[in-house]
């Protein structure tokens, strides 16, 4: 489903990604962890083609393949139409629009109007936010906005879903609603999902594989319990001991 092949991405003179590689098969649930500035969000940006303003979407080196297609130079909208959905680290809902309109825009690329309302209503009911469907998003609390952003990303049933810190700022019950949705989407639609997250407890409840990033590279990749015991990971992410990361 996804191949990130030795990708390097520079922000000015700083390498946000440095020869990073990752392979994800169809239907996998992968978590990405790592300290701040490790390149987790940049990795999602490179895959989805969404870069901060003023920064080229193309990797400086390496390639990204989605469904076997080289998308390294593709614009974000084209990658999204290939079936890649995403959320952002900071909530980015359309603030002047209502909850319903936000979800409706998630289905914009679907030409067939039939069934759109049903899909939106199903998600609104799942997250128990139907009563605020006609309320402008700007007037809702941040946690609800986070849920709406996740709902907007999944409403179109993408083949590859990238979630950037989906549990940040959420209460436990809302986290488990999202986890339940992730499992459901993975099971029913064989959706491939990559989650960048700092809340390890919730993440490990959700994924069956974890990749750890440090200084723009993937330094460990495997089962959650095995990865967290890796000495390099404990040094880089948990700050234990003084073992060299490269070793």
């Amino acid at each position: 489903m996804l191949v990130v092949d030795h990708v390097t991405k520079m922000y000015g003179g700083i390498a946000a990604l440095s020869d990073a590689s990752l392979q994800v098969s169809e239907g996998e649930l992968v978590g990405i962890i790592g300290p701040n500035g490790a390149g987790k969000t940049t990795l999602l940006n490179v895959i989805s083609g969404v870069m901060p303003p003023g920064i080229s979407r193309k990797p400086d080196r390496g390639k990204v393949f989605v469904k076997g297609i080289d998308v390294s130079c593709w614009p974000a909208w084209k990658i999204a139409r290939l079936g890649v959905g995403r959320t952002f680290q900071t909530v980015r809902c359309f603030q002047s629009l209502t909850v319903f309109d936000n979800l409706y825009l998630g289905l914009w690329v679907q030409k067939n109007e039939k069934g759109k309302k049903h899909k939106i209503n199903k998600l609104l009911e799942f997250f128990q936010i139907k009563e605020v469907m006609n309320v402008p998003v700007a007037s809702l609390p941040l946690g609800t906005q986070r849920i709406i952003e996740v709902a907007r990303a999944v409403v179109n049933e993408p083949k590859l879903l990238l979630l950037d810190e989906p549990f940040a700022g959420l209460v436990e019950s809302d986290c488990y609603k999202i986890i339940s949705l992730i499992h459901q989407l993975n099971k029913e639609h064989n959706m491939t999902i990559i989650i960048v997250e700092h809340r390890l407890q919730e993440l490990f409840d959700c994924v069956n594989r974890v990749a750890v990033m440090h200084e723009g590279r993937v330094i460990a990749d495997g089962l959650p319990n095995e990865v967290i015991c890796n000495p390099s990971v404990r040094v880089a992410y948990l700050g234990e001991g003084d073992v060299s990361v490269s070793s």
Partner: protein
Amino acid sequence: MRRFWKLMKWTWIARVGFIVFLYLFIYLGRPYYQSFCFSLAMFATLSMAWNLVGGFLGYVSFGHVMFWGVGAYVTAIFLKLGWSLPPALLSGGIISMIMAMIIGVSTLKLSGVYFAIGTLAAAEGLKILAAYFKNITGGGGGFYLPPVLGLQTCALLMCTVWAVFYVLLCFLLKSKHGKLIQAIRDDAQAAAALGIHVFQVRLRVFFLSAFFVGLAGGLYMINTSFINPATAFDISITVRMLVMTLLGGIGTVDGPVIGTTLYMSISELLWARFPEVHKMFLGALLIIIVLFARGGIADVARRLKVYASS
């Protein structure tokens, strides 16, 4: 829901009422009022077109007057070539749209201040070109056109162009395409991540805006029978579009119409009573609005409604 429909009903009654009032004013009024209504309809069209790009797309254009100038020149040239009025007028709008495509392709990829400077530079460039190609445009001396229509017919036509644009915008911005435009203004990157071709949407909105500005320019030319580069690409016309929009309420459907009506009425009254200092009063009014009502009249009305209901 019933309250919403009731409000919508009254909004539409006010809109249609204002359009009918303007038609009656032109039809029954003296030439002075016809001329006033012509200017009112023209500036309302220009402000609405500016608001579409500045208010709904979030792109502040400082060179919007160029489409007005292009529309005026193209209409005049085709009329002089012997074309009849409707195709000449439409050509003004269409060539302005093509101009928007050329300028939009290069400037709509820029953001914020760079777009503003880009459009300003394009307008200044066109002003120089219009002065340079004397054989086509008449150069700095201007372009004369024999009178084609009377003032009343001109004002009625301008009012029709404005009314069509007004109704079109009301429906467009309430439709799903309007939501799309607002979503792009809120967060273009998030919209792109949903598969929306942001640049294409921006370009289409820019086209639509340029088309109606071009039509208004063509009608101005027919009404005045004269244009020169200094008037056709005068930055103060763009500034007026911006001020009228800010006064009424940027990013709202009715704001530019309210702003234009208020600005022109106050300007006309002050001009009649205090011809030497009327611009000073207008300046003071604008400072008050910028300081105390940044969302314009539309925002003040909304706040009053919230205050009254609480």
